[in-house]
């Protein structure tokens, strides 16, 4: 029998970190397959996670392919499956199938400055490509990150972000002022206008809520970035992951298979149905 992509491979949860608590809780999970199965991903790709008895959810892989010991997922508690994932404990077994979708064309970006722009849980898909770029730092120009969250409590990867400041420029922001916050206050798109990154020889990669992405793109264009210099990821409801179940399409594109990574030059020509 041919390979059956619908059958998940079993994986053990080896570490769970609570990033954000409360109504919009986020946890980061590290997983290891029970058996070596040749799973190999590229930055930007997603995997379908199973909690048996609850179902599946498509989650972007936040660890870099350079990390061989585990797969990492940072997950916002939202629906049936992500809520069930938040109930799991270290040692529990979940199912993983994939990887699915295209990836960031990082090989095309050699020699360029990379500007990562994330909002909320949108840092998770960026985290993989950001760490891949950091792992091959000599291949690129300057690396920098803009990251914003609603409040300081909603910031994910807090410790990692502090460590990251030693390796690249990091511009953090929160939406509303707080007493002890020393960095920028305001939405991510405004922080970009404030810091004015240069479009010269640069690529921007942005992930976050659709409304943030929309204004980030507008503001990048105002700073002189061309459509080809702006990359983002699209999220839609998915079930199969292989372009057959029919629900994640934008125009003729299936986001699960042809996406989730698009340059704005590509995406602007597709129906804005996401």
């Amino acid at each position, binding site marked *: 029998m041919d390979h*059956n992509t619908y059958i998940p491979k079993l994986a053990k949860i080896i570490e769970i970190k609570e990033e954000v608590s409360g109504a919009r809780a986020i946890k980061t999970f590290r997983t290891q397959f029970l058996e070596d199965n040749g799973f190999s991903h590229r930055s930007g790709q997603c995997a379908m996670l199973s909690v048996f008895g609850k179902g599946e959810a498509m989650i972007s892989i936040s660890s870099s392919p350079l990390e061989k010991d585990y797969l990492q997922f940072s997950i916002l508690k939202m629906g049936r499956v992500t809520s069930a994932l938040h109930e799991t404990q270290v040692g529990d077994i979940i199912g993983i199938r994939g990887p699915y979708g295209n990836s960031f064309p990082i090989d095309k970006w050699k020699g360029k400055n990379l500007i990562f722009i994330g909002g909320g849980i949108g840092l998770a898909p960026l985290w993989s490509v950001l760490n891949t770029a950091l792992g091959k730092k000599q291949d690129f120009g300057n690396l920098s990150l803009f990251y914003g969250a609603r409040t300081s409590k909603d910031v994910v990867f807090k410790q990692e972000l502090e460590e990251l400041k030693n390796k690249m420029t990091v511009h953090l922001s929160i939406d509303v002022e707080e007493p002890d916050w020393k960095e920028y206050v305001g939405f991510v798109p405004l922080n970009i206008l404030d810091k004015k990154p240069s479009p010269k020889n640069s690529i921007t990669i942005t992930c976050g809520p659709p409304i943030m992405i929309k204004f980030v793109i507008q503001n990048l264009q105002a700073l002189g970035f061309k459509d080809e210099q702006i990359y983002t990821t699209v999220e839609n409801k998915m079930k199969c992951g292989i372009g*057959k179940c029919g629900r994640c399409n934008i125009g003729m594109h299936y986001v699960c298979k042809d996406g989730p990574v698009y340059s704005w030059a590509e995406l602007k020509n597709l129906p804005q149905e996401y």
Partner: protein
Amino acid sequence: MDKILLKKALPQWVKKLQTYRIYAPAKDEDIWTYEAVNTPEDIDLEFLITALSPKKIIFPQREVYFEFNKDDNDNPDIKETIPEDEPTIVFGVRPCDAKALTLTDLVFGGDFEDVYYWKRRNQTILVGLACNTPPSTNCFCLSVEGSPHSKEGLDILLTDLGDKYYVESLTKNGVKLLNLAKNLFTPPKAGDKKDLQKIHAESEKKIKKQIKNLKKVPPKLKGMWDSSFWDEEAMSCLRCGICTYMCPTCHCFDINDEVHSHTPLTGKRIRTWDTCQFPDFTMHSSGHNPRPDKASRLRQRIMHKFQYFVERYQNYQCTGCGRCITNCPVGIDIIEVLDKVRDYGP
């Protein structure tokens, strides 16, 4: 290979095929459906269009992907449930429905082959029946590159010549079925061939519904995504989804877990037909819905069939069977919608 089979010899042929599971049209009160044949004498090929196409045999409404089972401290056990070996023949396949399977083949094939679909597809032989008269008043196959005697996707095409069938075997599998009852089939006479051509030509003339200049529709649709046209067309839609559930080419599905017991955890992961006409189809778990209203969902149905599918697979995703027209409770007629699209705007 062309042959003649007397109608009264059909049951004898079917008897020779009983190592296969056989489906044929059967009447259930007022509707025709494909049912398993137990007695060959029961096969009745004097049928109108079936309620559902034979798609349901290849791509059933419910497919079990695997069973799962987990005791407290054990790892989950996953048992893949590939369809069993069961060589199958479907009798009385209408040419539009056979063509529809060539379209679902495109979806379930490609770089991720769907093993459940192909297991059933590869073990199923399709014996078609040409439509001497349109089996539905809403037939429009000629408009979507089909015909009432199209051979596309079929292994055998039967044409009713009165007291006999003209039998065209089109594939190795078709020839195999004829060879299982060689003595029943005789070579056609010159007159038979003439009759066949006449009947086929006449059958095309009997199809009254058509979409003129459908070629103009895909490029036209490209500019209509933001149009208020869809609001107007979808106004009467009840969001029942029957247009898609009855469609022989619609392939959208859902995947869910069905739990049979909690301790130990046992259950199944199942695929079921789904439809772009339901709000849940695209609704994110956050509540955000990229297709929030029936206008955007009607637009998706039409654009998928007549623009996106054409761009992706170079075929219309419609074979003109007319089921969506016949079954729509509020009379939304895909022919009228496409006529309006073609003539829309300047």
